[in-house]
């Protein structure tokens, strides 16, 4: 299987009130194209930190993160931004739709930030993937939680990223809606060959994935 993301001996330290806190300790892992991975563990175990490092939002204190053959620590800010635009999509627990933009405008936003042409067509297509094309003109406050998360998924996919990072994507949803979202992510990994890295508390949610990575106190167990 083609490896898309390699994490090698990664540690991450934060300074909190002058004291050093180790969020990740010597973590190594690699993930293949189209793999659906669950990162599970208690709050504060380092799930979100790992997602941020994988998504080129942060640098490790030591070790390397390689995304599609590009070592993130070797890049400057603008190159990292470009890498994120082209290779990574993010989904958040609290959806993070811009309240002032309509559904379609939210979805086409990453393309527009990247200066892409004809963003509307691609955005409508992604909305169709998540069965939200009929809601394109609505504003976020006119949607339910599940609908908002589906729009967020469409937005994360609009750049056809190789890696989709989902931080507790079902955390704000009821079980039924959460299941639908998980099915959608499963579908994306299978059909679009997108690697999905999902941080979750829920072992039930993790059950749908191909791989489960357990984290405890910043280490893979």
């Amino acid at each position, binding site marked *: 299987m083609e490896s898309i993301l390699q994490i090698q001996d990664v540690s991450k330290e934060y300074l909190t009130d002058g004291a050093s806190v180790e969020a990740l300790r010597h973590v190594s892992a690699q993930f293949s194209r189209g793999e659906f991975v669950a990162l599970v563990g208690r709050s504060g175990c380092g799930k979100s930190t790992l997602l941020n490092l994988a998504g080129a939002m942060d640098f490790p204190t030591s070790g390397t993160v390689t995304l599609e053959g590009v070592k993130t620590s070797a890049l400057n800010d*603008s190159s990292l*931004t470009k890498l994120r635009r082209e290779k990574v999509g993010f989904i958040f627990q*609290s959806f993070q739709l*811009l*309240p*002032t933009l309509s559904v379609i405008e939210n979805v086409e936003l990453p393309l527009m930030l990247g200066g892409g042409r004809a963003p509307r067509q691609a955005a409508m297509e992604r909305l169709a993937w998540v069965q939200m094309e009929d809601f394109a003109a609505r504003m976020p*406050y006119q949607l339910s939680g599940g609908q908002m998360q589906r729009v967020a998924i469409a937005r994360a996919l609009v750049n056809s990223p190789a890696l989709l990072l989902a931080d507790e994507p079902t955390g704000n949803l009821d079980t039924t809606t959460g299941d639908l979202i998980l099915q959608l992510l499963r579908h994306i990994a299978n059909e679009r060959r997108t690697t999905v890295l999902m941080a979750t508390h829920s072992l039930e949610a993790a059950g749908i994935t191909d791989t489960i990575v357990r984290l405890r106190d910043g280490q893979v167990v």
Partner: protein
Amino acid sequence: MGRLNRIVLFDRLIARPLRLEPLRTLLTALAVALGVAVVLAIELAGNAAAGSFRSSVETLTGDADFEITATGGVPAQTVASLAALPYALRIRPRIEDYASVAGDGRTIPFIGVDMLADALPSSTTDTSSFQRDDSVWIGDGLGYKAGDRLSLAINDTQSEFVVRGVLGARTGEVAVVDLAPATRLLGRNGSLDRILVQVPSGRSLDEWETVLRNALPPGVTVARQGSRTNENRRMLAAFRWNLRVLSYIALIVGAFLIYNTLSVSVVRRRAEIGILRALGATRGQVMAAFLGEAACFGLIGGVIGLALGRGLAEGAVKLVAATVDSLYVSSSPAPISLGWGLVALTMLAGVGVAVLSALSPAWEASRVTPVEAMSRGRREHEVSLHRFRSLGMAAVLALGAGLAARQGPIGGRPVFGCIAAILLIGCCTLAIPALVAMLSSAAGLARLCGVEALLASRSLAGSLRRTSVLVGALATAIAMTAAVGIMVGSFRQTVILWMSDGLQADLYLRPAMATGADRHPTMSPEIIQRLQSLPEVADVDPFRAYEISYEGLSATLGAGDARIAGRYGRRPLLSGAPTSTATDQLLAGDNAIVSEPFANKHHVKKGDVLKLSLSGRQAQFKVVDVYFDYSSERGYIILDRSTLLKYLPDPAPSNMAVYLKPGIGVDEGKRIVENAVSGRKVLVFANRTLREDAIKIFDRTFAITYALEGVAVFVAIMGVAGALLALVIDRRREFGLLRFLGGATGQLRRIILFEAGMLGLLANLAGMVLGVLLSLLLIYVINKQSFGWTIQFHWPVAMLLGALTLVYVATVLAGLYPARVATRLNPIEVIHEE
């Protein structure tokens, strides 16, 4: 809830957030501070400029009960008539004029008093020097000491004096001589300017007034002492009122910004308010908390404003005093005095304005219910829906403004004009949400400018309420600047056109000492003949001006040669009749033309009869027309010279217009005339120089107006900076998200700068429309009712374009710091805050 608990809660929920965002807190407090400071500075400067009419000599010699005056002078024998009355009256005759100090050109009061009777305190008691023409006693402010030599220009003559003594402490800048030398030096021919009378007790002042009036010859008037000062204060009332209104603009803009800050605060803390309500906070407590926050801004702003205002007053008093001096009355500014009363009023204004502006947002905060602490999107959607209702209300206010603009003044003050202006500002504020909402519909256009423009426009339209308040604040400041700019520009152009019509002579002469609205130094009459005899001179028009009081208000009585005015002049008349019609009637006898400010102030029109007391004679003049005049707000009554000489036979002119024969160049003519008047302290101006000087005075007069507008705009721009900073803090998660979605830091910076630019653009648009409407109000209602001048509307295009560009650039620059803050946000931290 105990008092201590209240304080602790206030500190935790209101004061702590203020401390956590010190820059924003400081910017908001500074907006109030500047508003308060401007109001205080204008009040202090106005008080100082209007508080110094009483001569320091009057203070020295003690109070009198009555003053006796007459236009053209009180006959000297009046003193004897009063002395002959069988009462123990204290009678003090006065000759009052002005002199210029050689070297530094300071114009100081030059007063003739009865040195023995007045017994002025000074460091000399040498009475033998009283009668000498070279003896002078001076105030301590002049900086000379006994024995020094002092050279003074009096009318068109330079005179040398020896300082015989320095008057007591705090006597200021004044020169005092004995009556006899004053009469000689000023060429008064036995007339006095004023007689001060102190009466014994035992009768009422009304009774004494009757006694004195019966003893006086016709044309000589008696009035309570201080009435002159009161007259001056009344005369200045309109000027000060207008200045005060202008100073309030900065405070109004500050109020807008407080409103904005509190509105933002309520929106940001909606969820927090919901939690507090769920935990048992009452509506009253929530409202009190937000009003308390506003009071904090007001308090901090008031304290800073006090210090700032006291400092600004130093500069403002010079500008105000210069205007008072050139337009109204001679006055040297009194020291600036900041009393406790004014301190209390200032603090009250700061806190009051802040609390009043916070009423609406605080009320809104108190209405939040725990279940209703909903998303910003829905809330703003509601505001968006209300914009049509706001447009309807705007239309009602516009109608009200139209009605108010048609009402007359109250007590000479354009109260309804100002109400119309406030209604127009309200109308504009209510219409702004609709204007901002147009941005949403122009999203296609914004897309063309890139994703940053789209996000910026959506953000502004999405925060409709906040954006509207901000645009409203900036638009109000811009509108007032534009309105005042258009008014002043129109006025300036009107004056230029008026001068090109009215100033037709080639050369003008006046005494070298400084003139003023109430100072008319004279030249020797033999200069007239000397100039008339020059072969290069075609005509000489001598003009004489007298300071008079008409219906309790100061005015100027003047006379020139109507034949010459008719021959050359193109003095535009309100009736539209040719100038010669009026000059012919002036030549026909006791007829007069009056200036437009005089006509408006005294409700005089063509055909009315003016009754004047002139040097002991009652005279009546029929008003044959009203002429446009912009040289003095006091107002002129103009007669033919022969008519004036019939009543006031002093032939000395105050100034002269000289018409050169064809073929004689102005420079050559000026040289010839200067030679002819050599030995006299007379200034000769070419026509062009006179006009340029007049425009310089004009520009100086309106300098304070521009300064006030500048402060208002500065306050608004500071508000924009503060609001953009708040916006960045408020939307930090959004900016973090954009970074997650692939947004570069440069794009974040551009979003903020686009928002700043759009705010500036919207404010400029709204401000210009409102500004033009306000300028019409200023020109045709407020100015007309306050000062009585007809101003032709002109577009000062260059000034407007310059000002608008400056404001726009400043607004965009105001976004730089917030943009920097936005780019430095840590996206991981802000996105995971909740």
